[in-house]
């Protein structure tokens, strides 16, 4: 299971998504797209979007914090 989340520091939905991962014991890698231009380009390429958070669960891309979609992708009941 590989979970990546592309964030900006001020984004509240990013914070919400991270809390959700922690609550459900999901390990994740956070990439701050303000500091990391490479991550920013990667995010835009993956999602074709310019909005955060972008979440990559094993290649399945979520834009925004879609709790129900994430639960499904992560197999959380």
């Amino acid at each position, binding site marked *: 299971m590989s979970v990546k989340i592309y964030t*900006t520091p001020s984004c509240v939905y990013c914070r919400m998504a991270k809390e959700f991962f922690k609550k459900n014991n999901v390990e994740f890698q956070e990439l701050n797209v303000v500091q990391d231009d490479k991550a920013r380009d990667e995010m835009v390429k993956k999602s074709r979007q310019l*909005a955060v958070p972008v979440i990559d669960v094993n290649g399945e891309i979520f*834009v925004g914090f879609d709790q129900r979609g994430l639960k499904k992708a992560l197999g959380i009941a």
Partner: protein
Amino acid sequence: MYELIIIGGGPAGVAAGIYTARKKIKSLIITESFGGQSFLSAGIENWIGTKSVSGFDFAKMLEDHLRAQEGIDIIDDDRVASMEKSGEKFLLTTKSGKNFETKYILMATGSERKKLNVPGEKELEGRGVSYCSICDAPLFKDKEVAVVGSGNAGLEAVIDLFPYATKIYLLERSEMLKGDPVTQGKIISNKKVEILKMAEVVSIEGKDFVSGIRYKDLKGGNEKVVPIGGIFVEIGAVPSSELVKGLVEMTPYGEVIVDHKTQQTSDAGIWAAGDITDVLYKQNNISAGDAVKAILNIDDKLRKK
């Protein structure tokens, strides 16, 4: 079958949930998230009893208080897709396909961001069109951007963009900026900002991402295109009342008309509280109070029968 289903998780929905649990009404609350529109606020300084709290922590406070109650069912990852009246009860279906029956309903769905409704807006949402400056401003580093709307939210979006954008056009339809004079002062004195008054957005241009904004100069009557890489729309809110369209009476703006003594709508089985209603002042504290009124009234109705 429930006695009451509360729809919404903002201050109105949560206040209703707490009171309904304490009254031991058999109830369910359905929401996709907690905190309401204030969730995106950097700081709330007028919630009574709390000097200052971020929107994120505010949402958490509400959620924790609700979850501390016994005897209320909570769905926090779904939304009601349709509502139907069937004799003395209501049938609700959620987006994920769950069905519920209830005697009464409390609408606490608040309001949602107003869209421009111009060509290009929907197609380019998330591709340069943003409704969350605090989230997305850093993505527009070294870009020229536009903010539409000069109320407090629009002015704050401009300030959120100061550290990142190279130039910020602020478009306002009327002749005057609308937000607080103090915030206006901060913006006018910044060299990055160019204010375009009497400017009505016609369309958003761009193929994969936003490349420009076309607006009509209401004074001269001609259209102009400004090349930009991002646009932040901050033109206010509309009540989220689609669900009860045709079921209850509404104002021309889509606000649900309530009896302000009881919060009951024109349908004897539906109550409403908070920003979805025709309440004159849309405030967190008022929404919570109005929801409490609704629950006390619903409890009266349930006990009489």
